[in-house]
């Protein structure tokens, strides 16, 4: 008993000060990719090398529409290796309440050799038509945090109880979600608590692309939750796995 106490006292407090201080992320970490939209000359190398189709383009009528979809991005950084206009940042904060916020589009004038030059519409061209549709910015997590806080305070008081369901994930997301309960992140200090039963949950946290064999179990879990209830999708598979939209109700937060 004394040894246990001694070990704890010797270790001291290891919990991060986040959000009072920024998240401790290595400068070498690969987070959100950033495209220099105004000076981007060719979407093809990035689209070809991207293993998940997060970078894509469509050519029509002498124009090219290029798209970056963070919901599909697995942060491998291969695009940045082949295209100087793409840079990997160490910003890992991508969560947003709207799926559309995760994708950014731009249209370009297409040239004969397959490259494109002048940007016609897209980020940084004139004023954004609607500030809500800007690409995800650093402050979006704060905004999201505030929005969720407002909504959860209204609905659930100061606490949020989460039921996590793996609907086909590779267990990578689970490793990180379990990590939130470690003494280093200690999620419970925010009043967020993982619960064992959907009956106790306010939020359903879904990882994975929703497999055929898990579809029914996921639906039953959701149905077992008392309303009001939220759904959050975690990971690239959860955010863009395809069948998610057809099997679950509106998703409140997207975290690729």
């Amino acid at each position, binding site marked *: 008993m004394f040894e*246990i106490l001694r070990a704890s006292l010797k270790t001291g407090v290891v919990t991060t000060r986040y959000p009072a201080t920024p998240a401790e992320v290595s400068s070498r970490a690969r987070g959100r990719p950033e495209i220099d939209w105004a000076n981007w000359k060719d979407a093809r190398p990035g689209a070809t090398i991207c*293993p998940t189709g997060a970078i894509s383009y469509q050519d029509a009528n002498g124009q090219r529409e290029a798209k970056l979809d963070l919901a599909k991005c697995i942060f491998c950084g291969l695009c940045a290796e082949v295209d100087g206009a793409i840079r990997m940042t160490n910003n890992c904060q991508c969560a947003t309440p709207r799926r559309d916020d995760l994708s950014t589009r731009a249209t370009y004038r297409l040239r004969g050799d397959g490259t494109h030059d002048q940007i016609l519409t897209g980020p940084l061209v004139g004023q954004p038509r609607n500030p809500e549709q800007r690409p995800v910015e650093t402050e979006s997590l704060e905004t999201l945090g505030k929005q969720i806080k407002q909504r959860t305070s209204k609905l659930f008081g100061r606490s949020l109880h989460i039921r996590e369901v793996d609907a086909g994930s590779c267990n990578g997301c689970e490793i990180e979600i379990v990590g939130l309960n470690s003494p280093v992140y200690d999620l419970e200090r925010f009043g967020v608590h993982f619960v064992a039963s959907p009956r106790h949950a306010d939020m359903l946290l879904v990882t994975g692309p929703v497999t055929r064999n*898990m579809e029914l179990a996921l639906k039953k879990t959701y149905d077992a939750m008392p309303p009001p209830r939220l759904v959050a999708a975690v990971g690239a598979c959860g955010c863009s796995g395809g069948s998610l939209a057809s099997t679950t109700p509106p998703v409140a937060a997207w975290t690729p």
Partner: protein
Amino acid sequence: MTVLPELLSIVTELQKRFRGRLDSVRTAHVNEVYVHATMDLVAGFTAHLYRKWNARLVSFFADDARPGEGAFHLYYVFALDAAHGFIVLRVPVSPDKPEFISLTNAIHAVNWQEREVQDMFGLKLLGHPNPRRCALHDHWPEVYPLRKDFDLRATLPPFQGEHHKFRAVEGEGVFQVPVGPVHAGIIEPGHFLFSVAGEPVLYLQLRLFYVHKGTEKLFESLPVPHCVRLAESISGDSSFAHATAFCYAVERAADVEAPPRARALRTACLELERIYNHLADIGAICTDVAFVTANMHAMRLKERVLRVNERLAGNRLLRGMACLGGVRFDWDTEQLRALADLVNELETELNSLVELIRGSSSTRDRLETTGVLKPELARDLGIVGIAGRASGFDHDLRRDFPHAFYDKVQFTVPVFSEGDVQRRMAVRREELYQSFSIIRQLLERLPPGPICAPLAEVPPDRTALGYVEGWRGEIFHWVRTAPGNRLARCKIKDPSLQNWPSLSEAILGNIVPDFPVVNKSFNLSYSGTDR
């Protein structure tokens, strides 16, 4: 191509023994020989290899070769640990008579794999004791997803097949306790049905494949470089091991060897993966017997490793590090320093964690003699990795089939014979110390030079086996290449698939409240099994 002398002598003996019955013998790699034969030879060939050469059937799968060769092929991969080589038996199955003979009654280890072949290829199993569906649940119509004529993008209609019946134990005072597929913790889905009389478990039936997502089919749809990233998502906790096993298979198919520095960095990453998972498991085992403080220390240490992973590979789970022909990122002095510091710090911390756990007699009381997997049973079921080594099954690909840089470093393989939870934890503890030593040796003699060999395009119609001793056990990838830098087939064998049935055996006679800790001591991957 030359063959290892020990393997050659076995092949020569086989040719003599089965004279005139082997259609052909082909050497694909220095330690990988293919034997082509017909279905009627399988049982005798397998029995001979097992009895005379102490072989293990490490992977069994099918391949739809109808487009090229007009038949399905069944592959039986035998590992000959003493000869450091693999013999792969290939048997054709005619599309006109799509059936094959089960080996399960003789080799229990192949049970699930045979049923998976039946589900995925529509080849009927003959003589299997339990030929029910395994990978595709009841609401899948009669489709065979791994046949070439099945379209990956096909949308299947809603379907309700025969309801899966669990075989329950019946009798006075016997209750059934169903658990899952959604579990109480933050873990993967699977269904367990316990039959209990009071507290002790009489029988446990498993149902898995809830997270089956057609990964092997996906491999056939992607260009080979993209497949490396897909391989990282087979089982998240073994991202690097699976990606490396895949790269190794493709490299062998293309006759390309990763340069020494790449092999050394791969080894370091494999050990880092082992370290963070073993630490997490030691902590989780303690949590399941209510010693939460130890888990908090373990999680703290695991987080240290994940942060160093991020500094070394740009990703906490080492994703993005693997690539065909080597690794993607070289490490500079500052990064190597961080790795050296990590190992030193972890060693001191692990010493105190081990002392802390050793000092808790109630923890030891719960772990010793709990969830015993007897050595005979482990052998029969072909249990690999940590669970195998805790039950006296002394196998480690790092030692027996040295890949990456393992032939250049010294280490021992801890083996226990008791097979209880305590020993599975002890295997992890000892392996952690070995991993520290391996990383230190690597840092001392890290070879200079390039970190990646060029591998632009994979030649078509080659077959190759890639293997890695992941932290959980042996991982096998088998590829058959196709024109245009694509794969015609990729078979993934995670150690979990091999080890799941042992859980049903280890839990017998234990009490239900001990199930979490027994399960955790195996810590098998659902995603790696279901794919």
